[in-house]
């Protein structure tokens, strides 16, 4: 009996030491949750491409302490997002998480990360409530609380008094349209219609006809480029000739490809311009294009910057010895991080990023920078 229990003890000790050994041997990881399949798969795949690019660049300069990224497919579904959050929280090699794509999924998963104390950085979630969940949430995208008023000022500067707003009916679309409408009214303008459509809608003629009745001077769109392309084509067919302004989510080459001549003249604000002369943007566009044979969109730029901000925080927090808390604190201390979507600084109190927007217009089938 005595011998047996000693044997057990030895076994337990051996098990524990091998466990701690294996913990040492595991490289530090970033968890990346994004919609890799399903309706929003094209965004998730751009995130994955951009993140892998940033990771390879990092690992080339940090060969001694390499980092890996573990991707998980959230399918754009909040329930999937929550189960990924549990999985990532239980995986002790993961010291920080990037994602998810939409505010809805990011917030659902964020509630788990808030409890398990794992830093979460979303490349795209712009709902005001996202960073309010807990001190563990970050984002490197400007929020609609910033973009809406910016676009409202832009439109009123162009002497447009009556605007109809069309937005997608999800967390993001609702805040985007409300923030815009409020600041446009504050600037003395009139919002003639505030319409939203269910995700997955392909026929916008009913909404456009309804909007046309209110006789707006311009239409403001807060939606994704694919919906935008269909809407612009149908707008042209219905003969509704008013200028269109859009949120940064529409900045995508594919918009022009899909909508063709219907996209001419559309004005969009953005944080990232692939044709920018900045050397770091040019370098990113060149390597991304060489590897994936397509020009990076704003979404790819956002993910590239998010991954680099996270990698930088891990390096600062001690590389392979980084703890989750140290990574979170290093993220919070991010200041003037130079990225392809502009410099990022997290506000010490609100953790909101400060960034700049620029103005684009579609002319002759391409995005060109405009002053107004």
């Amino acid at each position, binding site marked *: 009996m005595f011998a047996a229990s000693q044997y057990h003890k030895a076994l337990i000790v051996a098990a524990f030491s091998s466990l701690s050994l294996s913990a040492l041997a595991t490289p530090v990881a970033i968890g990346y949750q994004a919609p890799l399949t399903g309706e929003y798969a094209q965004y998730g795949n751009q995130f994955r491409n951009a993140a892998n690019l940033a990771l390879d660049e990092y690992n080339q300069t940090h060969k001694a302490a390499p980092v890996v990224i573990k991707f998980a497919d959230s399918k754009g579904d909040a329930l999937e997002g929550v189960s990924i959050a549990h999985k990532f929280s239980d995986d002790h090699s993961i010291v920080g998480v990037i994602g998810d794509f939409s505010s809805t999924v990011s917030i659902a998963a964020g509630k788990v990360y808030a409890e398990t104390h794992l830093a979460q950085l979303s490349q795209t979630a712009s709902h005001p409530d996202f960073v309010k969940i807990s001190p563990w949430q970050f984002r490197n995208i400007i929020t609609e609380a910033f973009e809406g008023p910016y676009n409202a000022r832009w439109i009123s500067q162009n002497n447009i008094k009556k605007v109809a707003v069309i937005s997608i009916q999800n967390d993001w679309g609702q805040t985007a349209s409300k923030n815009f409408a409020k600041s446009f009214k504050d600037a003395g303008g009139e919002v003639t219609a505030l319409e939203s459509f269910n995700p997955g809608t*392909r026929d916008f003629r009913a909404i456009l*006809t309804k909007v046309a009745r209110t006789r707006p001077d311009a239409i403001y769109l807060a939606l994704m480029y694919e919906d935008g*392309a*269909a809407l612009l084509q149908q707008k042209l067919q219905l003969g509704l000739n008013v200028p269109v302004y859009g949120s940064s989510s529409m900045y995508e080459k594919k918009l022009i490809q899909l909508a063709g001549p219907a996209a001419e003249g559309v004005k969009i604000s953005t944080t990232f311009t692939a044709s920018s002369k900045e050397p770091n943007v040019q370098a990113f566009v060149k390597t991304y294009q060489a590897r994936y044979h397509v020009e990076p969109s704003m979404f790819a730029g956002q993910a590239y910057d998010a991954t680099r901000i996270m990698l930088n925080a891990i390096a600062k927090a001690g590389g392979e010895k980084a703890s989750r808390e140290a990574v979170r604190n290093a993220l919070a201390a991010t200041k003037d991080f130079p990225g392809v979507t502009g410099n990022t600084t997290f506000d010490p109190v609100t953790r909101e990023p400060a960034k700049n927007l620029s103005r684009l217009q579609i002319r002759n089938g391409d995005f060109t920078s405009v002053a107004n």
Partner: protein
Amino acid sequence: MLDFFDVFLVQQLLNGLAQGLVYALIAIGFTLIFGVLNVVNFAHGEIYMLGAFAGLLAIQVLAPPAFAVLLLVAAAGLVLGVLLERVAFRPFRRFNDEASLKSKALREATLLSSLAISIITRELMQLYVGADMQSIPQAYLLMTPIQLGPLSIASGQVLIFVTALLMFVLLQWLLFRTRLGLSIRAVSNNRLGALHVGINVNHIIIATFAIGSLMGAVSGIVVGLYSGNIFPQMGFSPGIKAFVAMVMGGLDSIPGAVISAIVLGLCEALSTDFVSQGWSELISYALLLITLLYFPRGLFGKKVERV
């Protein structure tokens, strides 16, 4: 109040009619297959999607005239229908005794196998062509505006109307004026009886799938070119609406499904106009619920002969 009866309302009715015809196009093939087999073919939306992709492929590779695109897609639909029957339905049709024909388990098995095929097809397409919408050459886009005074309709809406009418008339002619139609109706009415009088039930079922899928595939390319959206998930949402139209129409009545589909489209456009687009789906499903509560066999379930 008078403001409601303006040109925009007429335009809205036109929009709704066009949208309803889109649902009707899909519902026709869907209802035909249900009527014969008494089982829901959940892969119909994917046949619709594959039809659109087959058309796009033909445009990209051959750049044929628009009419030839439709013929090629029809042929592709025919083949897809036969394949679908072979893969998802035939394996569960091994027995012809009365107990098996009435077995709920067998009906549910085919329902699930068609659902499985639908999910696999959609995901495979997404894997190979990507989830993005495909850009359609401008020359083929059916979005040329046709002005009728202050009203505007698209060339695609005219084509959808003509296609739906043609499909409907041809199908009614086929079902009630031809030998094949007679056999289809016989199989739909009593499969065992049809077998006993010497009808090759297998062939009839394959033919039904081929015709239904041909219609599904043609609707896919017509609607794809009209809406400017071709992508792997495109069959899902209109597929659901066609299903609602079929249930409202009484499950096996093709005229019932067509009328219900048009009613759905009109309700969606009008609810967008008077309430908001967010409510339009709720109104469609509320209509379904009301129908099922007050007309358990659908609006046209009893009055019309089966199929």
